C-alpha cells in the first residue's frame, strides 16, 4: 500500500511513545547510571567508567550461561517452529472440532509461568509424578533434580509444551487466510501435497512465521520464571540461563554495578540477534516472489 506522507501522524504515535518512554527509557537511564558508578550509599557514588563492564565480560560463569542460553534458544526454535507448523496443518479448518482443538491448544499459554514450573515440578517427579514415573518404569533412569542432562531436557520439554501453542495459533490463523481458490488452482495443476505446502502455504505464512520466530527467539532468550521454579537453575548450573544469572547478581548478591552493566550487554545481544534475524527473514521471504 502506498502511504501518504504526513508528519502530523506523529501526534497519533505520541501517546504510545510517551507511555513506552515512561516504562522503558526512564528505567533504562537508571540502569545506565548504575552501570558506570559504584554506589556506596544513598548519596555516595563514585564514577568507575567501564570497570563493571570489564568485570562482567571476564566472568567465567557468564560465558557458560551465555552458551547454554544460545543452545537452548536454538533448540527451542528448531523444535517448536516445525512442530507448530505441522500441528497447524493438521488442525481442522472449521466446525466444532476446530474450536475444540483451538481451545485445547491454547490452554498451556494461559497458565501463569510459575504455575507452569510448579506443574512440571510434580509431573516430572519419579515417585509421584506421571511423567517421571512412566519414564522410570520404562527402565530409563530419570531424575531432573539430580542429573543435569535430565534437567536440561525437562526445561526444554516444558518450553516446547508451553510455547509451541503460540506458533500453532499464529500459523493456523495464517493458513486460514489463504483463499480456497489457491488450493483449487493447485489441484487443477496436479500439484503434490509437498508442492502445495512449499509454494502456497509456506509463503502465505511468511509474515506470521516471522512474528512467531521473533517472539519465540526473544522470549526463550529471556526465559526466567519457569526454570527458576522447576530447577532453580540447578543441578549445579545446568539450567542457569542468562536471566537467572542476572537476577542472582541484582537481587541475590545486590551487585548493582555489574548487574546493570550486564543488563545493558544482555539487551544489546538480544537487539543485535533480533535485528539480524528480522532482516534475514525479510530477505528470505521476498526471494520467493509469491
Amino acid at each position, binding site marked *: 500500500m502506498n502511504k501518504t*506522507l*504526513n*508528519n*502530523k*501522524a*506523529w501526534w*497519533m*504515535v505520541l*501517546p*504510545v511513545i510517551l*507511555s*513506552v518512554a*515512561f*516504562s*522503558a527509557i*526512564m*528505567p*533504562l537511564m*537508571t*540502569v545506565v547510571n548504575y552501570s558506570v558508578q559504584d554506589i556506596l550509599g544513598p548519596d555516595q557514588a563514585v564514577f568507575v567508567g567501564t570497570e563493571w563492564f570489564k568485570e562482567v565480560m571476564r566472568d567465567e560463569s557468564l560465558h557458560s550461561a551465555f552458551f547454554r542460553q544460545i543452545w537452548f534458544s536454538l533448540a527451542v526454535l528448531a523444535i517448536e517452529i516445525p512442530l507448530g507448523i*505441522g*500441528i497447524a496443518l493438521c488442525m481442522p479448518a472449521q466446525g466444532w472440532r476446530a*474450536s475444540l*482443538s*483451538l*481451545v*485445547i491448544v*491454547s*490452554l*498451556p499459554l*494461559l*497458565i*501463569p509461568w*510459575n*504455575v507452569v514450573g510448579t*506443574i512440571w515440578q510434580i509431573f516430572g517427579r519419579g*515417585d*509421584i509424578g*506421571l511423567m517421571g*514415573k512412566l519414564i522410570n518404569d520404562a527402565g530409563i533412569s530419570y531424575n531432573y533434580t539430580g542429573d543435569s542432562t535430565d534437567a536440561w531436557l525437562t526445561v526444554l520439554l516444558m518450553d516446547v*509444551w508451553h510455547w509451541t501453542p503460540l506458533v500453532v495459533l499464529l500459523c493456523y*490463523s495464517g*493458513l486460514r*487466510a489463504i483463499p480456497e481458490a489457491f488450493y483449487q488452482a493447485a489441484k487443477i495443476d496436479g500439484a503434490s501435497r509437498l508442492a502445495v505446502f512449499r509454494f502456497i502455504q509456506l509463503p502465505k505464512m511468511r*509474515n*506470521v512465521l516471522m512474528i512467531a520466530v*521473533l517472539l519465540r527467539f*526473544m522470549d526463550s532468550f*529471556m526465559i*526466567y520464571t519457569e526454570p527458576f521454579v522447576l530447577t532453580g537453575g540447578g543441578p549445579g548450573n545446568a539450567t542457569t540461563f542468562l*536471566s537467572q544469572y*542476572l537476577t542472582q547478581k*541484582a537481587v541475590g548478591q545486590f551487585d548493582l554495578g555489574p*548487574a546493570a552493566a550486564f*543488563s545493558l550487554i*544482555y*539487551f544489546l545481544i*538480544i*537487539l543485535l540477534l533480533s535485528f539480524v534475524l*528480522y532482516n534475514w527473514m525479510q530477505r528470505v521471504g521476498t526471494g520467493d516472489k509469491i
Partner: protein
Amino acid sequence: MTRSVFSRAFLILFLAGSLLPIYWMLNMSLKTNEEILGAMTMWPSNLTFDNYITIFTDEAWYSGYINSMIYVALNMVMAVLLALPAAYAFSRYSFLGDKHLFFWLLTNRMTPPAVFLLPFFQLYSTFGMMDTHIAVALAHLLFNVPLAVWILEGFMSGIPKEIDETAYIDGYTFPKFFMKIFLPLIKSGIGVTAFFCFMFSWVELLLARTLTSVQAKPIAATMTRTVSAAGMDWGVLAAAGVLTIVPGALVIWFVRHYIAKGFAMGRV
C-alpha cells in the same frame, strides 16, 4: 485417505500430550495431600473439594484472583487504546523516522523484564505507586503496547485505503469515521490483540510480584508465597493452578472465531 488419518492421529497425540500435565494438576487438586505424596494414582481415590473450598473462602487466596483481573483488565484497555491511533498512523501514513520508530517499539518487547526490576521498583516508589494495580498495568505496557501496535498494524493494513477516502468524501470527520466505520472493520483485530495482551499480562510474574506486596498482590505471587510459608500444600496449590486457567480459557472461547478468521488478514 491415509494422509488425513495420519494427520488426525498426529493432532490427537499432540493435544493429548498438552493436556497431560494439565490433567495431572486437575487430578492433584481433587486429592488430599496424603494421597498426593503417598503414591502415584491415576485418579483421586477419595475425591475431595476441600482444596477449592479453601481458595474460595480464604481472602488471602481469592483476593489474588481479583487483583490479577483488575490489573490485567486495566492493562488490556490501556494497551489497546494507546495502540489504536499509533497502529493507524503506521499503517496509513509515512512520516519522519517511521521505520526506525517501529523497530524501536519492537525492541521494548526484547528487554528482559529482569533488567527492569530494580529501576521499576525505584521509579514507582518515587511516584508513590507501589502496590497499586495501576503500577503493574503500566509496567506491563512495556511489552504489551509494542505487540498491540504490531498486531493491529497488520489488521489495519489489510483494510483498503479507499474506504478512508470514500468516508471523507461522504463528509465524515476523522473521529467519526474512526469510531463508526473503521473500528467495526477491525473488530476481530481488536479481539485478537486483546487476547494477546490478556495472555501476556496474566501470565507474567516477575514484574507483578516486584511491584506489589499486599493490596495488589497477584494470584501467581500468592501461590509462590504460600509454598514457602506453609511447607508444600500441593493440593491447594494445584487447585489454585487449575483456577488460573479458567479466565484465560473463557477469553479464548470468546475470541476463537477471530483467531481462525481474522488474525492473518493483513499480515499475509
